[in-house]
C-alpha cells in the first residue's frame, strides 16, 4: 500500500513546452484563454488573456467538477467522461482530460465556435498527453533519487512555524 499520494514536479523546460503548445492552440482556434489544472485542483499553467477571476478558486472547482462527473460516468456504466462542455450565453468552456492526471480548460466566446475548438483541441490533447506522460514517467523514475529541494530543511521548517 503506498503511504501517500506521490508528489510531482515540472521543470522550466516542461513549462515552456506546455505554454508553447497552448499558445499555438489558442491562436489556431481563436479561444480566449487556456488553463491547465491537475486533478487535485492545483493550477499548473495559464495561457492567453489574463482571466479576470480568481484562477486558484477556478482550478479547485474545475477539478471538483471533473471528479464529480467521473463518478456520474461510472454510475451510467462509462469509465469516465474524457471531455466536458459548459455553455453560457456569451462565455463557454470546454474541458478535456490529459493523461488522467491533468485537465485542460479552454475559455472561449462568440469569436469562435465549439466545432473549431473541438477540432483544434484534439491534436493539442495528444501533444500534451505525451508531454505529461514524460513528466510523470520521470517523476516515477526519480522518486527517492531526485535532488529534494527540502532535504535537510528541518530547521528551516521549524523556524517557519515558530
Amino acid at each position, binding site marked *: *500500500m*503506498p*503511504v*501517500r*499520494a*506521490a*508528489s*510531482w*514536479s*515540472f*521543470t*522550466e523546460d516542461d*513549462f515552456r513546452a506546455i505554454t508553447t503548445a497552448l499558445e499555438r492552440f489558442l491562436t489556431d482556434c481563436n479561444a480566449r484563454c487556456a488553463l491547465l489544472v*491537475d*486533478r*487535485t*485542483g*492545483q493550477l*499548473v499553467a495559464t495561457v492567453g488573456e489574463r482571466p479576470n477571476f*480568481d484562477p*486558484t*478558486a477556478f482550478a*479547485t*472547482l474545475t477539478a*471538483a467538477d471533473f*471528479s*464529480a462527473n467521473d*463518478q456520474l460516468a461510472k454510475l451510467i456504466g462509462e469509465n469516465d467522461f474524457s471531455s466536458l462542455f459548459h455553455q453560457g450565453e456569451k462565455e463557454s468552456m470546454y474541458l478535456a482530460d490529459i493523461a488522467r492526471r491533468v485537465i485542460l480548460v479552454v475559455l472561449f466566446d462568440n469569436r469562435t465556435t465549439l466545432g473549431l475548438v473541438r477540432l483544434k483541441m484534439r491534436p493539442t490533447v495528444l501533444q500534451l498527453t505525451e508531454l505529461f506522460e514524460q513528466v510523470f514517467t520521470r517523476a516515477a523514475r526519480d522518486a527517492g533519487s531526485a535532488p*529534494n*529541494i*527540502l*532535504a*535537510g*530543511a*528541518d530547521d*528551516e*521548517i*521549524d523556524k*517557519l*512555524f515558530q
Partner: protein
Amino acid sequence: MSMINYASREINCKIVYYGPGLGGKTTNLEHVYGKVAPDTRGKLISLATETERTLFFDFLPVDLGTIRGFKTRFHLYTVPGQVYYNASRKLILKGVDGIVFVGDSQLERMEANQEAMQNLYDNMAEYGYDLTKMPFVIQYNKRDLPNASPIRDLQAALNPGWEVTESSRMRVTPDAYHAGENLIEQLPTGEWIERAQYFEAVAVSGDGVFDTLKGVSKLVLKSLA
C-alpha cells in the same frame, strides 16, 4: 499529492479537514480566512446548501511562508460531514497531503466522531493511502462546552494509537504540545504504539485553530524533506 512548480517557485500541498457533521470544520477555515493577511490568502469558496451545510467542500488557499526560495502554498479543504454525502467526501480526499480530523468534544457526539473516523480510514484505504504513515492530526473542538468529554475519553475512543512495527521508530517520543504525554511509547504489554498529534480547540473563538494548522503543515513539509 504535493506539486512543486519550478517555474513559479511554489510548493503546493493539500490539507483536508475531516470529521462529523457540525463539528466545526468550516469554522476552522473561516477563522483562518479572517485572521491571515489578505495578501497571503485567496478566496474562501464554499459549496454549501441554503442552510449553510457543506454540500461538496469549502476551500481556502493560504501561503505559510518561504523555504529555500519556494513559496509554500497550502490548499485547505473541508468535506461535508453529513453521512449522506460520502461520495463527495471521498472525492475531496484524492491527492491529499495532510489530514486534520475535527472531532466534536460533546459527549453525545462521541458515536458520530467514531463513525466519521472509521469512514476516514475506509475512504483513505480505498485510495490506497495509509493514514498511519502520513501527516495526520486530530483537533478536539468545542472544548468550552459544559458537556465536553474529558480528553482522555476522546483519546481512548478516537486516538488509541496504532502499532509501531519499524524498530528504528521504537523510542519514546514526547508530545511537544502536551507535557508529560508521549506520541510514541511502549505499553505495559511490551507493544510500541504511536498516536496522532492532538490539539484542543474552540474554533468559534479561534482557540487552537492556528496551532492545528501549523501542526499539520509542519508535518506535511517534513514529510517532503
